[in-house]
């Protein structure tokens, strides 16, 4: 069993990041090497400066706010939560002075960040079960939401256990030892991580996260990178 745990926590993590990084870069280079569209694709009235509006379209999603305010609320909550989750995970490597401008205890968000992401994902999933969104959905849309939900729920569980129920066997120091060893290519998995009561939660969290990273470059999640350039096309 612990061999499987180890395989998920070390070799599979390396494989997942390799696929994610190489896959994303190769796909983006391939697209950037295709010829530009010969004409403008903007819509009018033109808004100047175009780049500023493209940025606002990308990060504030004004069209969603106008046409589906409830979806907008959950989209903002979800993407905000994802951003904080990324920061939270970076802090599981080491201290970053930048992130501590607003002082907080690692993991950031008192357990609420994961909860927000999980609830938003459930909303996205359930709205897909109803028409008309159901009619335009394909299997990918469900797979990705379920995969993300599983990743978030097992990850959050560890955070909630520590923050809300004083579970202290597997803590920040153990994560830092483990993650730092991965990034320095001297992998070592501390006993707290491999043999404690919550190990299987961590393993499941990492397992689903690995799958997600490996699917990322080949899925619609690439909108992470494409949202800005595609919005720029609309603004000219």
């Amino acid at each position: 069993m612990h061999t499987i745990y180890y395989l998920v926590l070390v070799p599979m993590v390396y494989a997942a990041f390799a696929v994610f990084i190489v896959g994303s870069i190769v796909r983006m280079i391939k697209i950037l090497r295709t010829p530009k569209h010969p004409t403008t694709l903007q819509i009018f009235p033109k808004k100047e400066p175009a780049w500023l509006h493209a940025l606002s379209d990308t990060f504030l999603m004004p069209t969603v706010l106008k046409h589906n305010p409830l979806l907008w609320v959950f989209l903002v909550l979800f993407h905000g939560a994802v951003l904080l989750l990324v920061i939270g995970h970076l802090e599981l490597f080491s201290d970053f002075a930048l992130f501590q401008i607003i002082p907080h205890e690692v993991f950031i968000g008192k357990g609420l960040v994961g909860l927000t992401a999980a609830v938003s994902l459930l909303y996205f999933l359930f709205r897909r079960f109803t028409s008309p969104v159901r009619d335009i959905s394909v299997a990918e849309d469900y797979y990705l939401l379920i995969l993300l939900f599983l990743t978030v729920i097992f990850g959050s569980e560890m955070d909630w256990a520590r923050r809300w129920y004083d579970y202290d066997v597997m803590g920040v120091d153990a994560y830092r030892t483990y993650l730092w060893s991965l990034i320095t290519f001297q992998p070592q998995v501390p006993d707290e991580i491999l043999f404690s009561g919550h190990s299987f939660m961590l393993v499941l969290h990492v397992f689903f996260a690995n799958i997600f990273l490996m699917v990322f470059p080949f899925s619609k999640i690439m909108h992470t990178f494409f949202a800005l350039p595609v919005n720029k096309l609309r603004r000219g």
Partner: protein
Amino acid sequence: MDAKTRDDLLQLFQSKLNRAMTYYLETCTRCGVCTTACHVYQSMPQAKYIAAYRAEIVRRIYKKYFKGQGKVWPSYGEAKELTEMALEELYEAAYSCTGCRRCMVYCPFGIDTQMIMSIAKLLLVGAHAEPEILTLLADTSIEKGKSIEFFKEGFLQGVKNLEQQVVEKWKLEAEGKTVIPVDVEGADLLYVALAGAHSIIPAAAVFNAAGENWTLSFFEAVNFGAFVGDPTKTKLILDRIVNEAKRLKVKEVCICECGTAYRVMKQLSGKQPFEVSSVTEVHARYIREGRIKLDKSRFQGPVTYHDPCQIARNGGILEEPRYILQHLTDDYREMAPDPRYNYCCGGGGGLVALGEETLDFRMKSARVKAEQVQKTGAAILATACENCHTQLENLNHHYKLGMNVQFLTSMVADALVI
């Protein structure tokens, strides 16, 4: 479908995959915000009329043949084989989309459904499954470009007859000049009209009243190549006019009231030694410079204006028609919601050119447009596009709107103070 045909069609598909198209195909998250954008969906709420659904029909074929997932795990994105049946689906998607790009205003990414539909249209052309009449019309235009000498005599005679009408109606002799000049080298402005007196006579009256040094193009502006989605034919039809403009060394090419022609000429012709303008822009300029004067009392009753999608949302001519209308009426009624969200008339993308064949669909799918127009309470419905005008006339009749549908140029000409 045999393997050879499919390979040929996939080659055509590949030819469309530039950077913008790839972004459009890769980015959609099927969030559904575009659901209510389409006038067809609003009038007939069926999933197949949602922009994302239309796009997905093309996207599924893209996944099958241009993405690894189509080979490794086709059910992941519901990748779809290119078959006869798929062509039928592509037909329905492409020819129920008018290319108005209203969905682009809704999409959080700004995905251009018209552009994705251009793949569907090209595949249909490749499979000889496109509406034949559009190809036929495109070929006629191209043929005319090749053998202009053959058409010249008849055209010039036709123009002579029109001149009579201009002189009679406006009592207007262009001092020492022909009323409708053709083939004038060194003219300032080349006017590209449609094959129809209504597109030439009022424009001639306004040009002469403004003292413009103009010349009429031998060719009609409309580009059936663009309607049918054939890039080669679109270019050939466009080049006839570009070459004529270069030969006559004009400074400006002015496109008549035709949305497609304006957008194709403005955005597709590339960098040229002449400016491209719409006749609406030119008329607004004449008024601004005091070169023509209009009589406000000529038209009675409230007036509203329908923005042709290819000229307004996709071409940027929004302010000029409103400026002209300020000089034609004191009771201008804007449609709600504002022009950015203007509904397509329901006749774009070649649907009006297909005539009776599409009439039933056009009437049903544009119910929201008819309601939008009716809500203004206007007596006169002005527009600046031949297709829109035909479709709005049809809607006027079908929904018994009791409106007077007018071309903006005709209104300007009729209200000229001479």
